[in-house]
């Protein structure tokens, strides 16, 4: 499976939750969700491929950046934004691990 297919699957898993759980116009949620995921996904790969930092730590960083982004753009509250970011990133990471190990 090509690398960028993983990004498409990440979006398929995460964007529905962003659309469903955050307040705001669906166009904004779709655009910001896409851009935030594109930013964190590529950044994670750059760091992962060039350093020895543990992937779990990088995933936590990704969730924090996305949570920060959702709060900055939609102001749904820090707790909700962070919980959402950690939940959807944990879910996509977990599914990714499961797919790769089966």
């Amino acid at each position, binding site marked *: 499976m090509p690398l960028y297919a993983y990004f498409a699957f990440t979006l398929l898993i995460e964007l529905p939750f962003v659309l469903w759980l955050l307040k705001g116009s669906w166009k904004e949620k779709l655009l910001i969700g896409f851009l935030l995921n594109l930013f964190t996904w590529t950044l994670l*790969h750059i760091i992962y*491929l060039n350093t020895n930092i543990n992937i779990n730590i990088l995933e936590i960083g990704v969730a924090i950046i996305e949570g920060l982004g959702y709060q900055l753009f939609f102001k749904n509250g820090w707790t909700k934004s962070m919980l959402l970011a950690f939940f959807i990133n944990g879910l996509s990471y977990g599914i990714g691990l499961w797919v790769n190990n089966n």
Partner: protein
Amino acid sequence: MRTLLLALSLTICCQIWADMPGNKPRPDVWIQFTNTAHFTEYEFYYQAQRADNKMDLLKDTSYLLDGGYGVPKGAMIYGINKKTKEHTDTLYVYNQRSGMIFHLDSVENGKMKFSETEIPVTLSAEKVVVEKKENHLQGVNMIMLISLTAIALMGLIAFFVMKKKS
């Protein structure tokens, strides 16, 4: 207008960045060791650069040297005498765009002597292709990833600024 200028300046920066010399990707190459098992009184170790500082017992087999960017990546090889615990000298091997076979001829007074043979590029390349199919992270276009990161960040900044204004 200011947003447009910001986006334009960032795009120009990315364009300049893309033309910077000395950072071209280098292909992965194979290096192979032979005849080390013949020297039973020694244990040989192999440590690749950026491999968690982990040392592996050297075997008579092939090792993949990462290509990467910029400074060539490498590995170091040395032996330890099982009885005296004395270390041999160290062989440093760097990615030089072609594979190598290192045949250990002798170890005298703690000095290893290797005969070096270049592996034909085609043979080296075939093995790398096989390796790349096994790992989806091999051969990722780093410039593409950096560009996408910059584009996404630019988009987020532009959208944030527009939202602040409205």
